[in-house]
């Protein structure tokens, strides 16, 4: 059996292994070195790799990302950490108008092999400025790859893939999952982008969730089985760009029903995109409209009670799944 470690440790191991493997790989970000990372993902890396390769930066998001882009253009392979995804709004010009654009705009003369790591998500009462989920924002941008792992094993395999890949990668992490324990096989396992995971097989309804919602989907599936005798198939896309739509469509063509869970805002969200793609491609297979379970359409309030009310939960997922089956039984 493989060792069981926490997700944050899996990420750190993935970073360390790639740094040992390739001298061009280095890390930069706010408080990642001496402070060892505000979520402790980079713990111990300064000690092993030194100040040249584990670099603390000033609070200058747009320039941190832009410097990473320039370093990538200059032949390095930067892994930039933005302390949280909330601050990525300050760097969006460099991410969209530069990282995602330059390889295409200069017609392939140059590439931007960099990774931008961003913790995000709600649930810790960090309030309206610190609880965003921006998956839906990044999946819109051509030129970017978007990773959103939910397990320790996938996190390690995907961070390794992201570092080796020659495209700019937005690597989304959920703050609630860093402490999550899971088996992580030893050795050099690399996960290709665009390969969804079927976490649970089932024939009645397909439930799709990323990051923390991948776990909520599993809880919902268990409850559907235990309390309602319904077998849900659970899919974790793992990357949103590219998106493994085939695996999702195959499942929906079997179950004829789909529920999408996301933590972000409802309008123009991950769910809206997926729901549209599924409906367009599998319209004749659907016995009910695709259901979405999303965060509330408000800035995330601080009050624990309000925050929990604004976030999607297992019960909502179960209810949504049941709604797709209404009349069916």
């Amino acid at each position, binding site marked *: 059996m493989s060792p069981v470690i*926490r997700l944050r440790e899996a990420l750190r191991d993935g970073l360390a292994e790639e740094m040992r493997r390739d001298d061009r790989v280095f890390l930069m970000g*706010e*408080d990642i070195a*001496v*402070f*060892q990372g*505000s*979520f*402790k993902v980079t*713990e111990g890396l300064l000690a092993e790799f030194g100040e040249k390769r584990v670099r*603390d930066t*000033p*609070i*200058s998001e*747009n*320039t941190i990302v832009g410097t990473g882009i320039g370093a990538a253009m200059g032949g390095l392979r930067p892994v930039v950490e933005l302390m949280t995804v*909330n*601050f990525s709004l*300050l760097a969006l010009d460099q991410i969209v108008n530069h990282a995602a654009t330059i390889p295409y705009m200069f017609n392939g003369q140059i590439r931007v092999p960099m990774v931008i790591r961003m913790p995000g998500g709600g*649930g*810790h*009462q*960090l*309030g*309206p*400025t*610190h609880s965003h989920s921006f998956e839906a924002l990044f999946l819109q941008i051509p030129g970017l790859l978007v990773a959103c792992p939910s397990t320790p094993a996938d996190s390690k395999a995907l961070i390794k893939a992201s570092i080796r890949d020659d495209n700019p990668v937005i690597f989304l992490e959920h*703050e*609630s*999952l*860093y*402490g*999550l324990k899971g088996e992580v096989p030893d050795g050099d396992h690399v996960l290709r982008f665009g390969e969804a995971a079927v976490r649970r097989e089932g024939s009645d309804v397909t439930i799709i969730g990323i990051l923390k919602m991948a776990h909520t989907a599993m*809880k919902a599936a268990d409850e559907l089985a235990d309390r309602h005798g319904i077998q849900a198939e659970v899919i974790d896309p793992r990357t949103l760009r590219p998106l493994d739509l085939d695996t999702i469509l195959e499942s929906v063509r079997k179950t004829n029903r789909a529920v999408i869970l996301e933590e972000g805002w*409802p*309008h123009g969200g991950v769910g809206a995109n997926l729901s549209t793609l599924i409906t367009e491609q599998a319209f004749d297979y659907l016995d009910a409209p695709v*259901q*979405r*379970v*999303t*965060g*509330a*359409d*408000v800035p995330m*309030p*601080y*009050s*624990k*009670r*309000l925050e*929990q*009310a*604004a*976030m*999607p*939960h*297992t*019960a*909502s997922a179960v209810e*949504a799944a049941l709604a797709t089956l209404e009349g069916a039984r």
Partner: protein
Amino acid sequence: DSGAARLEQVRTLPDRDTCLELLGQMSLIRRFEEEANRQYNRARAGGFLHLAIGEEATIVGTTSVMRPDDNLIGTYRTHGHALSRGTPATAVMAELFGKVDGASGGRGGSMHISDVGRRFFGGHGIVGGNLPLAAGLALASQYQGTDQVTVCMFGDGATNTGNFGETMNLAALWDLPVLFLVENNLYGMGTSLERHSAVTDLSQKARGYGIEGERVDGMDLLAVRDGVSTHLEQVRRESRPALVEAFTYRYRGHSAADPETYREEEEVLQWREKDPINRFAELCVEQGVLTEAEVEEVDATARQTVDEAVQFAEGSPDPPLDSLYDNLYVVSETMGWYAVDQRSPEPHRGERSSEAPEVARRLAEEGASRIEEREDHSRPGVRR
């Protein structure tokens, strides 16, 4: 420099009542922060908690020379700023508890305290985000022809943000009546000043944009009051921005979750020697303005105020779940309605306010799953 020079002269204390008032405010901040930390460790307060213990003179020295109609805007470390502007400790503590009687109705939490009635415009969680807002508040005063000054407080780390350069230039270009007050506590989170800023004399950064700056001893209440009032009144008179750098220190970690591996205990102890509250209290006693007993009493009052604040916060209810969507938009002539569900007959779950109570009931049942989360990750900043 002129600041250092003046520093020696300004040993003369204000009148007794003012001394009591100033000491009272600093003590209140100190005791409030200590209690906030206890409540945080008891998980009565959530999220991140940034304490200003050690920075009381910088805060009170600044707010105490402002006019009630001047504007104040700060960062996520502003419990003390609100308190010294006059926001009741009950409202600040209730905000930390996320209660309906909180200064921001429980919506903002520790990082987003606000009291617009007292012209405290928050409490902002994005480093550097409050600088342009301050320029705008100052523009409004200039535009309306008032002589209000906007005081914008931010940390040493914030001087590295793009907003700093942009706002310095705009404020200087437009002669905006704004006083930038840098709370230089020598660290941006775990990164020390010389490791995050190429120029460690932060007033020099402002000078590059044509804004005069001065450094004051942020641990010395009288020095802060003198330096700030001098520049504040100049800003008011000449309607030109200025920058004051208060050299101070936070005794506690960046946030309550900070293991503080980046600095020596020794350093902290040295700064504690300069404690702004003791320093001021001793001066008051030395000069016979206050007695030891009175100093004790001031502190006792502060402790009691804080205890009452906790009781109040505990007694205050959570915000009602059906208030989830309140104040998201103003409904009016021009925007007659809005619907969290885009007026769809079958709203998506989690989108319709009237569904919130339902969600809550579900949560109760789900308790277990949430508790597991709490254990595992409720303090994302802490190493486990």
